[in-house]
């Protein structure tokens, strides 16, 4: 009977109604399995008592604020929920009811409900913000710990904000590149000192044995691009595209792609987005794993509180390599499938 009840409660927790989606009720923790038969007999009574002492609506466990239904956001949410709901609750009565998460899609909220939504967030134990808009919305929160991710614009946030950055350390990237493109020995990089100078420093300080040369060229004016690219031609085996708006501007990107095509130099980008126009490979983060990472971070904060040993910004823990095999084959660049996590498939198939 108890198993049936638990199963029913589980099923209820994993239901797919709209209510469940927005205000997901947590499942009963499976710790009851370890009790003996006499205690199990009391489970219905205890369950009814717990139901009577159910958490009121304002006392939410975790609120996940998602900026929009963008695919990476959705993947991050799914990764978060999967891990968060599997985590044991920290303390109090919830220790027997498990974690809950309430998802709120910010793009579907009416502008007039902003105040009430903020009041709701203030009563949560943990707020998870996915995307720039969500972070912008919750940046006034002071009392509630906030874990944010996939927010490239996040900056100058209070101490209660713990984030997962989108930047992957150069060394990890180069290791991934080396694993996927073992023949690449020298990599050319255009960089804007004001935007990615620090990253260049880090890259220079973290050499990878396989990569012999990193050819950095400054990109600080329009007219220097053809010359810089001309200098790279024949000197590099690949081009490393950095997350810089000026370097990804259409005309610059066009020149880079043309350069890539003309000199058979693959472009390694920081996002899958550039695989469609012609980048050969993307070394990027795993959004699902980033969500799971946020869940673990949140659980740690819920359990231990905002302690000083939690850095305000944590790099993503998993590097994901997505290749565009068509481009690689056209450019004649050999690649190791073992070093590739996924292949880019254009919309409508190849």
């Amino acid at each position, binding site marked *: 009977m108890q198993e049936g009840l638990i199963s029913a409660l589980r099923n209820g927790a994993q239901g797919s109604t709209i209510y469940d989606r927005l205000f997901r009720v947590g499942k009963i923790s499976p710790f009851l399995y370890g009790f003996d038969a006499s205690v199990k007999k009391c489970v219905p009574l205890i369950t009814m008592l717990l139901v009577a002492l159910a958490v009121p609506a304002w006392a939410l466990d975790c609120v996940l604020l998602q900026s*929009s239904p*963008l*695919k*990476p956001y959705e993947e991050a949410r799914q990764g978060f929920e999967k891990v968060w709901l599997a985590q044991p609750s920290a303390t109090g009565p919830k220790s027997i009811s498990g974690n809950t998460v309430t998802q709120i899609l910010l793009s579907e909220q009416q502008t007039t409900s902003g105040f009430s939504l903020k009041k709701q967030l203030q009563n949560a134990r943990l707020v998870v913000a996915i*995307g*720039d808009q969500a972070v912008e919305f919750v940046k006034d929160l002071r009392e509630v710990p906030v874990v944010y991710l*996939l927010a*490239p*614009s996040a900056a100058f946030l209070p101490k209660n904000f713990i984030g997962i950055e*989108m930047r992957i350390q150069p060394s990890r990237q180069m290791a991934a590149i080396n694993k996927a493109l073992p023949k690449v020995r020298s990599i050319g990089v255009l960089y804007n000192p004001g935007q990615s100078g620090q990253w260049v420093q880090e890259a220079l300080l973290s050499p990878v044995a396989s990569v012999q040369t990193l050819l950095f060229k400054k990109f600080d004016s*329009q*007219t220097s*691009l*053809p010359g810089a690219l001309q200098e790279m031609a024949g000197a590099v085996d690949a081009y490393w595209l950095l*997350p810089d*708006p*000026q370097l*990804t*501007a*259409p*005309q*610059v990107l*066009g*020149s880079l792609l*043309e350069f890539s095509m003309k000199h058979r130099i693959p472009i390694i980008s*920081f*996002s899958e*987005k550039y695989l469609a126009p012609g980048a050969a490979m993307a070394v*990027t983060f795993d959004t699902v794993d980033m969500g799971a990472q946020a869940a673990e971070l949140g659980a740690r904060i819920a359990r231990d509180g905002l302690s000083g040993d939690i850095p305000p910004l944590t790099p993503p823990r998993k590097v994901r390599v997505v290749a565009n095999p068509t481009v690689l084959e056209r450019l004649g660049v050999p690649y190791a499938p073992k070093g590739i996590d996924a292949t880019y498939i254009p919309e409508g198939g190849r």
Partner: protein
Amino acid sequence: MSFPVLHWMKKKIRLPRGYRLKLFLTFLGVLVLCGTALIVLFGQIQRQTLLEETYNKGNFVSTILARNLEIPLFFMNTEQISANVEAIFGATDLVSVFIYDREGKRIFSHFAPQAEGIAPRLEEMGGLGQIMAEHLAADGYYPNPRWRQEHYFVFSKRISTAGYSRDQTSLYFDTGKVEQRQVTDLGGVQIVFSRAQYTQGMERIIRHVLLLFLFFLPISLFTAVMLTRDVVRPLRALVETLSIRLGITEEEEEEEEEKATDELGQLDIRMKQLVTRLEQSFDTIALMNEGLEEKVAARTAELTRAMQELKEAQALLVQSEKMGAMGQLVAGVAHEVNNTTNFITGALPPLGKRLDELRRILDGLGKQCCPDASRVAELMQSIDLLMGNVREGARRTSKIVSDLKNFSRPDNDLARPIDINHCLESTLALALPEYRHRLEVIREFADDLPPVPGSQGQLCQVFMNLIINAVHAQPDKGFLLIRTFSTEDGVHVVFADKGAGIPKNIQEKIFEPFFTTKEVGKGTGLGLSVSFGIISRHRGRILMRSEPGQGAEFEVILPTGQEPIMAQHEEHK
């Protein structure tokens, strides 16, 4: 060539003239006008289409080139600019490309190989730089200017580029949003197309259209001829039919043709003539309608009278059958009586001779044989008296038989010449014995009556009817004058009595069958009608004159020279 030949040719060889010519010219004119209008319209549409195509081509090429020049111009990559420009020189009729910077200053010029000779002229072609400068200076959306010169089409296109995105998220992901990026003008491109291809296209269109026109012109002519012929043929046939029906002579027709030069005019004349005839006909009909009632009444009266006569004939036929049967009976009886009487009349002369011989014998013997001679004389006188009586009786019997024979003579001898006086005597001999004592009969028979062809029996029947009517009209004591005389009309027989006469109101009805003034059972009403029918068949007339209280007079007029109708009928049989 003589005049009749010309006339014959004019009649036979119908050249298009009159309405046919007008129709033909109208058809032809409309066809040519429509054709010309269609050709002009078609040519105009083609020209417009060609012009649009040229414009579209120019806009398309300039847009493509502007797009391709965006990156090289952004980085001022002259090598790439030159390569991109040369790439489009495969386009037909493209003679030159000019590229301008954002201030409208020409920074690059490129000419097609075939246009190298005219490069300076193109370079100096006035207004191009000005057009581009104005185009680049215009704020907001400004349609790409196109310029048409006598020999060239010029298309200008602004080259612009969008700035980089400020949205950091879009740096990593496809957000699906249309980013509002700042657009920066890099300059402009101007391409110059030669009009040669356009001109050749136009010339080709005009040539094709003219060929099309020349192809359809004979078809139009043929169609016009056929149409006019088909239209005019029934019209002409109608005019000719009307001419025939109206009885128009050739001379009149020629005169009318001079007045009306086409078939419609002739038809108009014919129709007016027809209308006039119709009006006349309607007038005639109206006039005829006016006397129609009277004619109908007259015809009805004639028919009634014919019907009456038919009935009379029927009654007469019945009566004739009766009389025929009676005549046969009477003839048979008369024949038998005549045979018996012949014994008497045949025996009387020898009996008289025997009696004379007996008287002589007795006279010779004297008193020896007959003691009572007086008694013998008495007996002889008595015998003579009786013999006289017998002789008279026989004579009378023979007379009666003869009269019966005359009366009952069959009708198949209608054509025999009849002695009217003899016929009257026979009839009177039969009729008078019954009324001898109360009827005074005055006979005024003409001696020189010609014989009348006809049926003695039927005429005797008529006379008998008239005599009996006179007797019945004078029930107590009567008077009957029977007079015969002959005139040119024929033989007249007049029966005049001194009875009460016939009232005026029934004088018209007395010859009608079954009309009688006698008591029921005493008269059949057939006597006079039968008599009228008999006299009519003898082509004669029976007239009646009567004044009330002054007796009545019937006059039978029988023609002498004409055979009776029945006699002729019998002869035909």
